[in-house]
């Protein structure tokens, strides 16, 4: 055994101890709450509940300690721990330290379990009589089971030679086989950790994972209540207490998903906030099912119908959260997702599989066992009733979720034994996504949005049970007329220009736009027409308005997205590459090369690449791009702004690009670097050629001639200040290229008390470096000219305009506020407390989504 020097062993020991304690206490609380839920004798039940409560509290504290320990290790750069070595680094800004923790598999499992534990604490300590005696025990036993699994994932102990879970406290020397670890002082050689993936160095990555995981974690509560309903045989009673939780969960999960979208928009270069990526889909699907479930639960509350559907949706929401964990963490999506996920090892994959199955299988067995006993009304509802259309809407949401997950799961089919062979025999090869995968989703979802829009617009005005025709017509007339007017105005003044998929799809976009506008107006007017501005019960309408506005924003910003770096937009004839036969009409030509200091037209803008500057993190460069928009006479600059997209050039020459966006109220100009040269690799070999020239004389360079206009002594210049004893000479040279372009250069030579300093100038457009080399004996000036073929400084950019993208974020905020309002209202929070929570949530969301960029 080698005694290693400089290792900090204590934090790891503390961490390990508390992981084991958290595991044991979750097991004991699972047992106690499980037993408690079977006891009908109240005093016995209370005993077990009390024991469970103590254990769960210990569990909660243990998890917090584990989290704090990981944070401590990363914060102090204890690279003897694998987690710190893999995810932290010294140059990392401290605000990203939290992101380090959720970058890793272990950390994100931990985050998930923290939220379960927090929610569990609310359930455990909530004192209401009915909650305590009926719901607490079964609900907590579900949470206890989930926690047990999550603790196993981060346990990292060997059983019979198989490691169960990956502990965040393993030592680097045990994980990586390298000769260095045979030296006792190996730590002195490890200079730095690998650091956070550069794509995750964005402030959204600090906030998005916790919110998303809170959303995921909170879906366990409706699931647990559904289980409690079956377990206690109080089949319909769970809906009421589960309702506020379901609404809260929908709010948080929705916000979490769109935060991911905002992150993708701001820091990934796939050019948008949604790409139907498998990882995004996997989080959207539970949300859609949850929304369906909320609507069937509301139907049950009002009419006693749809109870079985409510069970199904509440169960499936959480099961699909688990399934999405399976999809994104087992590496099964490998070849289909831009998100980088690798296999974490077979043992972990089996654990994840078990986790999914041990929730999905028992609950379905229980559900089908009691299916007949779950009360259902066997008469048909009126087609003029609200519940009828709400149910249709829920069904539609559910089916659309199934559609999305069926397509997303394509990689899974190819790995399922029998299915795989079947597919190969029918399809003649392993199944892969079609040519235009986005369009496959879009064309189905646009249909869904048409129906959802109309259903949300109309069904609010219907009453439960049945509605008279005159009542309905009297109410829906005004919103409908308003929608017609607004849609027509939009059609005339701001038409959709999306011809990529033909006229049929364009019509579909218009219909979807119409129905979303209808939904927004109709729900907005409902607040005044029917609710008489009673905001307390307006949560649903507000959420609907928000959802509709979000869809409107998505439709407009995506269909009228303009690629301004497209050479066709600019009317430039891009020289055809080396293979002229492949150049076709529909080729994507979205990249434009900007040569330094040469203004180039992009859409309405004149763009010039001014310079690059390095950031304070290693390998990061910002490219300063000046955007100018001139008025029609091209005389006055109407608009001017600077974008600074940046690129990380990593040491192995990999490149990662972060876009920069200029946000206006009505549009975003989104730009990122799609290609940049690596400066270090491009060393210049050309030499200066010295030419002697007098004032007013001309000479030649390869691409034209130049004239020495004048030589000025101690020029008055804002950049340089010269003292009385300094001698500075500045040559003013004009270059005239063969195509009659004029460029000025002003090289200088300065002699001061420190010696002679030459300040060169450059004409990037002509690849020229110009030097004031000295004065010759015959009073001529020596000018050095270097013509470089390598040092053309340029960047290749992609640039988009997203119109009205702020509607997407605004809609999201409104929707979240509506859901939150309903949740607080149903949880019977006091008016004062509700208003405070709502105000804070609104300020927070508004700041993050619309202000902080």
């Amino acid at each position, binding site marked *: 055994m080698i005694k290693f020097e400089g290792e900090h062993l204590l934090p790891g020991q503390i961490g390990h101890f508390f992981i084991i304690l958290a595991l044991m206490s979750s097991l004991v609380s699972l047992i106690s709450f499980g037993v408690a839920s079977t006891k009908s004798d109240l005093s016995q039940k209370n005993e077990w509940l009390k024991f469970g409560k103590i254990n769960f509290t210990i569990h909660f504290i243990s998890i917090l300690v584990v989290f704090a320990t990981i944070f401590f290790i990363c914060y102090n750069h204890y690279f003897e721990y694998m987690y710190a070595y*893999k*995810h932290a680094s010294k140059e990392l800004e401290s605000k990203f330290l939290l992101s380090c923790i959720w970058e890793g598999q272990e950390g994100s499992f931990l985050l998930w379990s923290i939220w379960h534990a927090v929610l569990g604490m609310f359930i455990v300590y909530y004192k209401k009589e009915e909650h305590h005696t009926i719901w607490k025990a079964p609900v907590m036993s579900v949470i206890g089971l989930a926690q047990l699994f999550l603790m196993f994932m981060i346990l990292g102990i060997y059983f019979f030679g198989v490691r169960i879970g990956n502990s965040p406290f393993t030592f*680097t020397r045990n994980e*990586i*086989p*390298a000769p*260095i670890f045979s030296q006792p002082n*190996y730590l002195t*050689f*490890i*200079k730095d950790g*690998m650091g956070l993936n550069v794509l995750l160095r964005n402030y959204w990555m600090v906030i998005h994972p916790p919110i998303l995981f809170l959303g995921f974690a909170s879906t366990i509560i409706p699931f647990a209540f559904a289980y409690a309903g079956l377990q206690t045989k109080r089949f319909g009673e769970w809906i009421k207490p589960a309702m506020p939780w379901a609404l809260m969960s929908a709010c948080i999960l929705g916000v979490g998903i769109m935060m991911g979208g905002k992150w993708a928009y701001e820091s990934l270069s796939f050019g948008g906030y949604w790409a139907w990526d498998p990882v995004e889909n996997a989080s959207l699907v539970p949300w859609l099912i949850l929304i369906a479930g909320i609507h069937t639960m509301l139907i049950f509350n009002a009419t006693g*119908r*749809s109870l079985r*559907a409510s069970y199904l949706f509440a169960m499936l929401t959480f099961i699909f959260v688990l399934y999405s964990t399976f999809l994104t963490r087992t590496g099964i999506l490998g*070849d*289909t997702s*831009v998100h*980088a996920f*690798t296999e974490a090892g077979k043992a972990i994959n089996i654990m994840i599989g078990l986790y999914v199955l041990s929730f999905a299988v028992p609950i379905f067995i229980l559900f089908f066992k009691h299916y007949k006993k779950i009360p259902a009304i066997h008469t*048909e509802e009126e087609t003029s009733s609200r519940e009828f259309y709400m*149910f*249709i809407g829920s*069904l*539609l949401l559910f*089916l659309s979720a199934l*559609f999305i997950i069926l397509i997303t799961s394509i990689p899974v089919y190819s790995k399922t034994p029998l299915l795989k062979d079947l597919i190969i025999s029918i399809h*003649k*090869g*392993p199944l*892969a996504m*079609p*040519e235009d995968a986005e369009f*496959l989703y879009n064309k*189905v979802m646009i*249909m869904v949005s048409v129906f959802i829009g109309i259903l949300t617009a109309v069904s609010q005005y219907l009453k439960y049970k049945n509605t008279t025709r005159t009542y309905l017509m009297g109410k829906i007339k005004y919103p409908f007329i308003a929608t017609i007017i607004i849609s027509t105005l939009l059609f005339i003044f701001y038409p959709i220009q999306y011809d990529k998929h033909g006229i049929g799809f364009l019509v579909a976009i218009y219909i979807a736009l119409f129905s979303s506008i209808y939904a927004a107006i109709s729900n907005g007017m409902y607040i005044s027409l029917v609710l008489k501005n009673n905001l307390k019960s307006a949560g649903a309408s507000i959420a609907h308005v928000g959802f509709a506005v979000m869809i409107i924003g998505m439709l407009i910003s995506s269909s009228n997205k303009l690629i301004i770096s497209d050479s066709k937009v600019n009317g430039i004839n*891009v*020289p*055809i*590459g*080396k293979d002229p036969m*492949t150049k076709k009409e529909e*080729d*994507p*030509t*979205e*990249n*434009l*090369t900007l*040569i330094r200091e040469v203004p180039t037209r992009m859409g309405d803008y004149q763009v010039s690449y001014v310079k690059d500057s390095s950031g304070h993190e290693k390998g990061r460069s910002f490219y300063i791009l000046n955007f100018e928009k001139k008025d029609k006479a091209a005389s006055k600059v109407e608009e001017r702004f600077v974008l600074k997209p940046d*690129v990380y050039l990593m040491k*192995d*020459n*990999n*490149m990662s690009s972060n876009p920069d966006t200029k946000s206006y109220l009505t549009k975003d100009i989104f730009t990122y670097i*799609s*290609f940049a040269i690596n400066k270090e690799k491009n060393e210049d070999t050309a030499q200066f050629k010295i030419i002697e020239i007098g004032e007013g004389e001309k000479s030649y360079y390869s691409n034209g001639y130049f004239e020495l206009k004048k030589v000025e002594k101690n020029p008055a210049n804002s950049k340089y200040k010269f003292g009385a004893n300094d001698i500075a000479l500045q040559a003013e040279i004009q270059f005239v290229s063969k195509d009659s372009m004029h460029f000025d250069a002003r090289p200088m030579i300065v002699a001061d008390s420190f010696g002679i300093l030459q300040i060169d100038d450059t004409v990037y457009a002509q690849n020229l470096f110009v030097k004031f080399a000295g004065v010759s004996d015959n009073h001529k000036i020596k000018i050095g000219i270097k013509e470089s073929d390598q040092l053309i400084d*340029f960047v*290749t950019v*992609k640039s988009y305009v997203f119109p009205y993208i702020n509607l997407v974020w605004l809609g999201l905020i409104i929707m979240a506020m509506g859901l939150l309002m309903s949740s607080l209202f149903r949880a019977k929070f006091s008016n004062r407390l509700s208003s405070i929570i709502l105000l804070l949530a609104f300020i927070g969301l508004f700041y993050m989504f619309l202000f902080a960029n």
Partner: protein
Amino acid sequence: MKRTHIIILIGIVALIIGLLVFSVDFSTYDTINSAKKKQGKFVHLIAKLDKSEPITYDPIKNPNYLSFYAVDSLGGKTQVIYHNSKPGDLEKSERIVLKGKMESDHFECQDILLKCPSKYKDDKKMLEKDMKDQTTKN
């Protein structure tokens, strides 16, 4: 939840399935050689960059033209032309998923998905390499 529901449900399902069946042509994963037999058909190739051949990308001439050669594990080889910018980590990639069509002598690529070791901190080899780089430098 009776007759009317069921009818509407079936209607909706039929609509979605109909849309799918009529308009979607799912692709396949192919080898370079089998793709060559499916000229003009959209396929997915799983391949590797052929480092013995040149990569052509001159963004000053045309930022939307990239050409390189790909090989796969079964020995197939093809030129790949991609009318877009060069992905930054192409040279370092271990595996490339290419989406596009084979057109006579070359593969007309529409989308490239790179699998790079640097993205994978969980990759043991990558960890070893990083550790070696660090500890042998000084």
